[in-house]
């Protein structure tokens, strides 16, 4: 079993620590609030010789991900981090990384996208990148951000998968708040992630290969996209296997879907990221006044755990889906669309209400979450569900 020590640290500090322990061969990064301290602290590790990583400072996130793609194609284990506008600027390379099947691991500090300018948390950055072919894990706490970063390496580099993987943590709330985190010893993490054996490395001069080939003009582009779909479907089993193995090692649970109080819940809230803790807190309080509330937290958004979610929600009478991102003009936020789809085949259709909350770091007070659970408990016994989405706490 690993030696673990408990420290007080920010989410960003422990993500940088996890990256050091995973010992990437290369990192190309550009600073952006609220991710900056991840790559800043990692640069410190490189400067002090605590990790032997080729650290490349670049002029933009477009260049950062381009350099990561090149290094990964060359055969390196590659990690980086970004946020918000930076992730948006990487957009074309995100598709290239997944299309070239490069197992790059990136941390993303979830932050709103301009305009108006804002630096605080919401999920509009990552939800904008949800269709880029990256496996996407979400953390509620600094601990989960640490754990997800380590697991991401194993998931991405698994021979059945070979897809880039993103590990998301909520900007400022998780990246900058000091939290209690258990850190494993270096040897245990090194043993868990193992050595990376690249396939088709450009620097393997004995076996020359071409990367970045053309598949248009009637070529097999369509077939390559299908193979990406097949790989991300295979990743479901790998994510659960790696999660189980990591749980065994760390003593901490992992599930693509994690539930609280769902055994006998009448009403449930589906949520992603740091707000899950607040929702659990409120649900626990509401149970004292007789409302059987449950919480379903999504820890893996791509691939989306449809079957697990449908099973977790079977038997409830009303569901609230909390989206920290908009999909303007859609019937609801990105998570709402997924959850409703997951429930389409359920034996009994129950009301599913979409709450858009916390955009641009807008405060999610406990009283607001109480209104969600109060609404749900009334809808569960026949009250009219609101038509359309609800902007929670917006004027």
């Amino acid at each position, binding site marked *: 079993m690993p030696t673990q020590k408990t420290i007080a640290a920010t989410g960003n500090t422990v993500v940088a620590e996890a990256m050091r322990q995973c010992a990437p061969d290369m990192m190309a990064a550009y600073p952006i609030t609220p991710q900056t301290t991840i790559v800043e602290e990692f640069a410190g590790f490189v400067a002090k010789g605590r990790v032997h990583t080729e650290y490349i400072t670049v002029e933009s996130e477009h260049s950062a991900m381009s350099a990561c793609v090149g290094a990964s194609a060359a055969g390196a284990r590659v990690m980086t981090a970004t946020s918000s506008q930076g992730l948006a600027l990487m957009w074309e390379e995100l598709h290239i990384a997944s*299309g*070239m*099947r*490069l197992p790059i691991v990136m941390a993303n500090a979830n932050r709103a996208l301009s305009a108006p300018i804002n630096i605080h948390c919401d999920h509009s950055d990552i939800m904008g990148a949800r269709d880029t072919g990256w496996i996407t894990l979400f953390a509620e706490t600094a601990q989960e951000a640490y754990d997800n970063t380590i697991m991401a390496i194993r998931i991405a580099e698994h021979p059945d998968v*070979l897809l880039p993987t993103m590990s998301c943590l909520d900007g400022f709330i998780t990246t900058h708040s000091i939290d209690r985190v258990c850190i494993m010893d270096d040897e245990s993490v090194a043993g868990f992630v193992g050595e990376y054996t690249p*396939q*088709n490395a450009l620097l393997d001069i004995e*076996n*020359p*290969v*071409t*990367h*970045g*080939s053309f*598949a248009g*003009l009637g070529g*097999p582009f369509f*077939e*390559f996209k*299908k*193979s990406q779909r*097949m790989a991300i479907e295979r990743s479901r089993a790998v994510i659960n296997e790696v999660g189980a193995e990591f749980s065994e090692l760390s003593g901490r649970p992992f599930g693509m879907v994690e539930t609280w109080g769902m055994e006998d819940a009448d009403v449930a809230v589906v949520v992603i990221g740091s707000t899950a803790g607040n929702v659990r807190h409120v649900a626990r309080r509401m149970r004292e006044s007789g409302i059987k509330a449950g919480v379903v937290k999504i820890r893996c958004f791509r691939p989306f755990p449809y079957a697990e979610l449908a099973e977790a929600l079977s038997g409830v009478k009303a569901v609230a889906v909390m989206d920290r991102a908009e999909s303007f003009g859609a019937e609801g936020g990105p998570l709402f669309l997924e959850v409703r789809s997951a429930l389409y085949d359920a034996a009994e259709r129950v009301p599913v209400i979409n709450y858009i909350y916390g955009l641009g770091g807008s405060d999610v007070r406990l009283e607001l979450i109480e209104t969600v659970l109060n609404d749900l408990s009334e809808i569960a016994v026949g009250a009219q569900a609101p038509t359309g989405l609800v902007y929670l706490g917006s004027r």
Partner: protein
Amino acid sequence: MSKWDISGLNEWKSDEFPLGAVIPESGNSRDYVTGGWRSQRPERNDATCTQCLICWIMCPDSAVNTEDEKVTTFNLRHCKGCGVCANQCPVDAITMVPEGCDLPEVK
């Protein structure tokens, strides 16, 4: 490493292609037939041709075949029918003729 057989490429299924569209062999573009775009092909008149080899020098696709330093035929698996050879020929020994639907040497 043995030669990579791509003859069945147009029938391969999604899981039969190399990972991430990698080409796992160098120098194999000669095996990949690219002449299918062609709408016209060059024909050479051996009686007029002076064997100056200007067409061989100018062809952007290296699709002029030679033997013993003399032009023999055109490689119609790769010729795109651009007409540079005919245009550059100082004695007008090359004529571009329209292709039908079934291009010779193109699968």
